[in-house]
């Protein structure tokens, strides 16, 4: 666009899209409208800074889970150029396995005695279940169609997604399940002796900080904040996993093979890379992240409805996150997830909408991103021509 026209148009070429496409104008007007509404809500005091900080923290923890799932989309997309529609179900499988594992630990008493180890075991079990589902998916549904027209694997992926959802529903029942109450106390040395206090009608006794189901009121710079430590735990655990992934992709031989296959399958094969195995590795990596995300997601109290359709919305949102960051782009997916989580948590109340509409907010965000920056904030790693 910049290359055509006289110097005048070149000087104002950032305005050109606005004139060219009515969609840009509508989108821009809508954006301005949103900003005005938000600003008025903040200025009239309907939206307080306390709310903002609480929602920011919650949004970051939710967003880090979206990032974990989004990475699965992005990795597979980067290498196969297909959207793995069933990724939400890979997530769901992890959550189910996590539930059964932690339930088993609870029944056997292991959870009460060694809470940390039990949680770690649950995380690993969830990840393994996701990996099994993803590998089967790749083997049965995707591999035979690798050279088919684009629509075919897409439809297969949808079919696989429905199949998995229904199968889990029929196998494990339609009723939602819930993680048992977990209490994990840390920093016990800081609190000597039991101190009890009443919060929201519940008496909580503690010797240490309960980092799983605890709720604490903190006075920070004159603001009364109600904070759940689990948000920080989820955020930092996800961050650690993502950093590990980053190192895996950048520093290991397998990671290099993955990048090579993403660049060009045929050449990679000529260089002695086993393409099939690399693709499976990619699915495994995506599933590991999704499984971890699923267990973390179900661990958050008030969040953990484990049922067969639970993967659907996190799946769509993670896809949105991947698009926001630029699909195929690993740091982009990490950023996109966090951004979406915050936007979705802050968005409805700053716009004065009910929380029922938080999915509408994130979807609106997706459409806006597609209007203004279809390649995402960080741009796609792969250009359109390659696809």
């Amino acid at each position, binding site marked *: 666009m910049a290359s055509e026209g006289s110097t005048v148009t070149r000087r104002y070429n950032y305005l050109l899209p606005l004139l060219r496409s009515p969609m840009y104008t509508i989108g821009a007007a809508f954006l301005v409208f949103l900003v005005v509404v938000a600003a008025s809500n903040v200025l009239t005091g309907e939206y307080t800074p306390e709310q903002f900080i609480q929602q920011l923290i919650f949004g970051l923890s939710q967003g880090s889970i979206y990032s974990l799932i989004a990475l699965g989309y992005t990795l597979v997309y980067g290498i196969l150029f297909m959207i793995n529609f069933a990724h939400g179900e890979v997530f769901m499988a992890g959550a189910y396995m996590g539930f059964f594992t932690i339930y088993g630990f609870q029944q056997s008493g292991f959870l009460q005695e060694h809470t940390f180890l039990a949680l770690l075991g649950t995380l690993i079990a969830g990840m393994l279940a996701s990996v099994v589902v993803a590998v089967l998916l790749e083997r049965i*549904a995707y591999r035979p169609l690798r050279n*088919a027209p684009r*629509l075919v694997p897409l439809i*297969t992926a949808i079919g696989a997604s*429905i199949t998995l959802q229904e199968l889990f529903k029929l196998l494990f029942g*339609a009723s939602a399940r819930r993680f048992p109450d977990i209490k994990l106390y840390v920093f016990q040395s800081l609190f000597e002796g039991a101190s009890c206090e009443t919060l929201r009608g519940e008496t909580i006794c503690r010797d240490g900080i309960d980092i799983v189901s605890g709720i604490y009121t903190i006075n920070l710079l004159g603001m009364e904040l109600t904070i759940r430590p689990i948000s920080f735990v989820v955020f930092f655990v996800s961050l650690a996993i993502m950093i590990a992934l980053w190192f895996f992709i950048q520093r290991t031989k397998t990671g290099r093979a993955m990048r090579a296959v993403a660049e060009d399958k045929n050449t990679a094969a000529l260089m002695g890379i086993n393409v099939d195995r690399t693709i499976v590795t990619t699915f495994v990596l995506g599933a590991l992240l999704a499984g971890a995300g699923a267990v973390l997601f179900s661990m958050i109290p008030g969040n953990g409805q484990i049922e067969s359709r639970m993967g659907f919305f996190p799946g769509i949102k993670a896809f949105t996150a991947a698009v926001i960051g630029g699909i195929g782009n690993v740091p982009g997916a990490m950023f996109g997830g966090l951004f979406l989580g915050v936007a979705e948590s802050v968005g409805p109340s700053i716009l004065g909408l009910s929380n029922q*509409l938080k*999915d509408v907010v994130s*979807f609106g965000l997706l459409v806006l991103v*597609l209007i203004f920056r279809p390649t995402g904030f960080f741009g796609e790693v792969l250009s359109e021509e390659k696809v």
Partner: protein
Amino acid sequence: MFHKNTLRYPFYVTVVIVILTLTGIFSTFESREVLEDYLTLATVTLGLMIGVSAYVTALPMRGRLIAVSVNSLIGVLIPTLALILIVVLDTRTDLTFVFQRLKDLNPGTLTSGKIVYLDGGGLLSPLRDLNFADWITVPGVQLQGFALLLLFAVVVAGFVIVYIHFSRQWRTIIFISLLLTVVLSLASGQLDRILTLPDAVMLFTVFALGYFVAFYLPESLWLRTISGFSLGMISAGALVLLVNNGALDAGGVLRGIGSVPRILQMSINGDFIVGDLSIPLSVFFILILGVIGAFGALINRAPRSVHDASLYFALGLLLLGILQWGDRFRVNDTILGVEIIWNRPEVGILRAIIIFFLLCMAMWIVPRLSIRAEKTFLRVVPVQRHQTQFIFFAISMLVLLIAPQFMGLYISNVFNLIALYTIMGIGLNVMVGYAGLLDLGYVASFAIGAYTLGILTKPNILTCGGADPATLENALQTCTGVMTFWQAWPICVVFSAVTGMLLGVPVLRLRGDYLAIVTLGFGEITNRIIKADDFKPLFGAASGITRIPSPVIDLTRFDEGWYAQLNNSTSIYYLFLFSVLFAAFVVYRLANSRIGRAWRAVKADENVAQAMGIHLVNTKLLAFGVSSAFAGLGGAVFGASVQGIFPDSFTILVSINVLSLIIIGGMGSIPGVVLGSMILIGLPELLRELDDYRLLSFGVLLVVVMLIKPEGILPPSPPKLAEKEQVIHG
């Protein structure tokens, strides 16, 4: 003796069977009887699954009897032993916490214990009530249940050994006939009220008479029509005489049936009164049979698809009659002076056997007749070909018009549902089949159509000019914005087309995958919005919009009596029928126009299409608009037919259903859509109890169809552009 997959295939099948068992498939299917008192669906399912296992295992050894026997035994025994293992595990530990639907599984459930239920339940009936807790505590006492299961497996293996030695064609015929027999027996509860046996036999006979006599006639169109017609009339006249003399009545055919044959009864009963005219019903009777005879005479010179469809349709009528016979048969009857006591279960078995043989015969003979019909058809001059096709069209319209008078409310309802999904399928086909764009949020346009109708035809904030209708005294007078159905439906169609296109604009510039997921989100968001309390005054939140007025046909200005309210499923059927025909016509014309070719070009290769001067975005947008418009039409008709719309009717399941039916029916083909919605929408309606497994089978079907036959069951015929050119120049 063995091949490299001898163990692998049974293992795969075993995995599937074990998973399905853990979903509780056998305990769900046990309550559904295929043959009353003899066979439950659980047994059929088990037999089918281990049968498939034996078949695939033994097939490579075909022709070597011993090897086939050994392989098919291995094929049945591995899954059966796995099942026995599950049963034992289930009695020892409680699996129901994990597998919630798995309840009281025992070998009795698997084989239903009824399969060898010979003399009134005496011989082996104790097996039905085996208590395996006892067996566990006293080992070796009650092994009969497992023995029965193994015996059943061996019987299945024996069947497979015989079956595998048929020719390929007969294997297909037998398999499909068996499946259809099972389906018909399952659905007999819903299907047995449509047509009585005397009616069915009569119609079929006249049809067959016309068909076979026409073999010996010259190929002239009118000669055939007239002779078929007169044959029908002659038979009808003979029947009128016989019936009036009480001949059939005395033979017990009329008397032995619970309900009266409706068509045959026309030959004796009453008059049809229009104004001052009074026509004896027997005239209609004679005319109907005349038309059927003519149809039979014409059909043996027809294009293959029409010919086959008509023959199977005639067979279907006969089968409907046979189904009715079984369930309405009097307990004891005298045939030729011999008193015969019939029990319903035995009639059921006899009925199933007859149906099975009729199906086998039909599937063997129809393809042969069909080749002949096609050859004759191609020999006649093109003008007469067109005339023939026109007559077929007129007759099928006639059948569709009078059908609801026979079907009853329930079947009409099923037909309406099929029609609704056909409209939507035709619409989505424009997107997916022609333009190659995957739309997963089709339900959004459907919901927009339905809710637009609901809003426009009811008093609410919008139609009352901003006032709350609840506070108004006389809402109906003040709310001037309230429309009738006929005023509202074009708005519904246009509105959903426009919203569809608006959504399409940002997305269509991008790759197809984005479109898929954005539309998926759009569908779900629409559902969220109509469910949200924020918009309660307009959309009614969870309670939806109720009491939508049903469409009224008001022609009282021409004649006092011409007033009809389409408020039950037999009358709203006509609205659905009209909408389907409208949608099919529009899409058919569009698909064969310049626009349709542009869509196909875009689907085939975007870059090439662009190079040929096709504007990509506009073409895609148009496809999006047309497809959303038909969803809107479907939504409007749906809203008018159910008279109450709720957010729960507009979930992603609708999108999945529509997508599955066009993919399985055949992308880009209108007959494919009709077939797809009959199979995927009509069949599950008739087999209501199997609803739990409906979506699962859709998902599996999507994957399997894509892996095996990506073009669907009835793929579109390739465009005959070159041939057309020849006709013009030559």
